[in-house]
């Protein structure tokens, strides 16, 4: 059943650009996939290990800036830049994790919030490196040839497929983690951290590994952001609201599930973007509303709720 659903989903994702040429709809699908990617990588730490980070925008921003700067000042190919963004993000995650994981529960969340604000303020003021609030702009992305075909970045379609690859890989990664020893450790940390330590799990190392993995994927997403929007500034990529949106997508979709983030992203991002298209401000109203409804009535998230429904029926 699940396998059938996954295959149907993949087929739909692969063929979607053939179905419509409407640029708003293409943008919408790219955004849904982008947020699926972020929600899935946040879920690695927040869902499986129960460590609610309010600071994941740090890694998004680092990935975006590394990609941007390595292309603009070093002339590195944007794809390698994206990869570098992920790696640098993961490298930053290690010290951040070692500091913040000394704290538990809500205190950890507050500490990640503080780290995110510090990084944002540094990015805003370190003008030699980041150009400060002016931001960085890519005016031209050279077309690349891939498997004999030329990829033209002026169109949205290549970004769409790039987003599909990234989002599906992130979901595959969360699935793999959920079946792995690391996943079992993370669940143990979430359920009872003291007992996990008592049975010999190095909880700090486990959580740091999960954070680094999560940061790597968010860093890649940051690189994608930089290439797709071609403009970054500290308030765009290091904003608290970005970190919070990732949390909301994962929680509303379903914590610690593989399909949760895509469900959360489809629901929240499409409502949000359609609202933003019609009215200028306030597209996050529904994020807040859904968050409150889900916590109160459906703590396992929309996907978790659907799964329970099917189980009860069948």
């Amino acid at each position, binding site marked *: 059943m699940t396998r059938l659903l996954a295959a149907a989903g993949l087929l739909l994702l692969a063929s979607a650009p053939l179905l419509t040429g409407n640029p708003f709809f293409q943008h919408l699908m790219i955004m849904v996939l982008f947020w699926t990617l972020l929600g899935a990588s946040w879920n690695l730490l927040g869902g499986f290990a129960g460590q609610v980070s309010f600071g994941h925008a740090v890694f998004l921003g680092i990935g975006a800036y590394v990609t941007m700067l390595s292309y603009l000042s070093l002339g590195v190919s944007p794809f390698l830049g994206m990869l570098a963004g992920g790696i640098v993000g993961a490298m930053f995650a290690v010290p951040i994790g070692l500091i913040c994981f000394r704290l538990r529960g809500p205190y950890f*969340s507050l500490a990640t919030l*503080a780290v995110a604000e510090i990084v944002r303020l540094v990015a805003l003021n370190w003008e030699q490196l980041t150009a400060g609030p002016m931001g960085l702009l890519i005016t031209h992305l050279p077309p690349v040839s891939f498997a004999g075909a030329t990829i033209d970045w002026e169109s949205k379609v290549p970004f769409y497929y790039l987003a599909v690859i990234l989002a599906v890989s992130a979901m595959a990664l969360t699935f793999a983690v959920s079946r792995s020893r690391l996943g079992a450790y993370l669940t143990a940390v979430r359920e009872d951290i003291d007992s996990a330590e008592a049975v010999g799990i190095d909880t700090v190392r486990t959580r740091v590994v999960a954070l680094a993995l999560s940061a790597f994927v968010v860093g890649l997403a940051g690189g994608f952001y930089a290439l797709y929007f071609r403009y970054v500034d500290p308030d765009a990529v290091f904003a608290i609201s970005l970190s919070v949106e990732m949390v909301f997508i994962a929680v509303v979709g379903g914590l610690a599930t593989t399909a949760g983030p895509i469900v959360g992203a489809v629901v929240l991002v499409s409502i949000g973007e359609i609202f933003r298209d019609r009215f*200028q401000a306030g597209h996050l109203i529904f994020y807040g509303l859904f968050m409150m409804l889900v916590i109160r009535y459906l703590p396992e998230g929309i996907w978790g709720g659907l799964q329970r429904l099917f189980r009860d029926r069948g």
Partner: protein
Amino acid sequence: MESFVQSVVSGVLTGSLYAMIAVGLTIVFGVMRIINLAHGDMVMLGMFGAYWSYTLWGIDPFLSVGIWAPLMFAGGMLVQRFLLKEVIPKGELNTLLYTAGLSLLIANLALFFWTGDYRTLNLDYAVMPARPFGISVPIPLAIAFFMAIAITTALYLLLSRTDVGRAMRATAQNPQSAALMGVDVQRIDMITFGLGTALAAAAGVLLVPSLYLYPTVGEILIVKCFVIVVLGGLGSVPGAIAGGVLLGLVESLGAVYVSVAYKDTIGFVLFLLVLLFRPAGLFGVGKS
């Protein structure tokens, strides 16, 4: 020397208002064990309340505290009764996420109705600062300072001298025992959340003549508020007051002696250090 005195004065003035907001957050945490991420948005609602009552009806913000604080007290009681009460038993993290949702909802409704424009409220008597002893003191900030002291003192007396205050402190220490001693814990929770909301909104009203207001102003205020409350020890009222003044001082002295650009960063670094090395707060009074 003069710039030192000047920055101490402005640090204490701003710090007193920070303290007032933080006291609201800390009593809610102390009694109900929830970290209310929507607290900054309550300040924002107070600011907009004062702004509209001034622009539409010409009521001076320092008088409209008398309207907005009681209204927000009632609003806070309703939020606790109809929104938070069912969620608190689901655990600390769920409650944190729930208040994050509430915060996003309030801020974005405000964005939708009032747009993201930066607004200011200019009072006639606020143009020139007073200059006692050659130190420049902005008049609205000075009035706000004295009103913040009065309101915080009133709260302190309420907590220490009245039956309701005693019941609140008992609930903070141990809700089960308090209930066994005949304290209506549900009612105390409502009153506490109402008071926290009213303090936040009142501080917002008092801040309006001195700050820009915009719908997402709560975001930066709540983050500062956490810094203060952690500095002073979560759940401690004197700690929150001391932490508020301390943060005000750190910011204004940091702006003069370190760098204007990094003045906010100093507060966050201090916050991380305290969280890591003295989680009970600088004064060792809070419960971690």
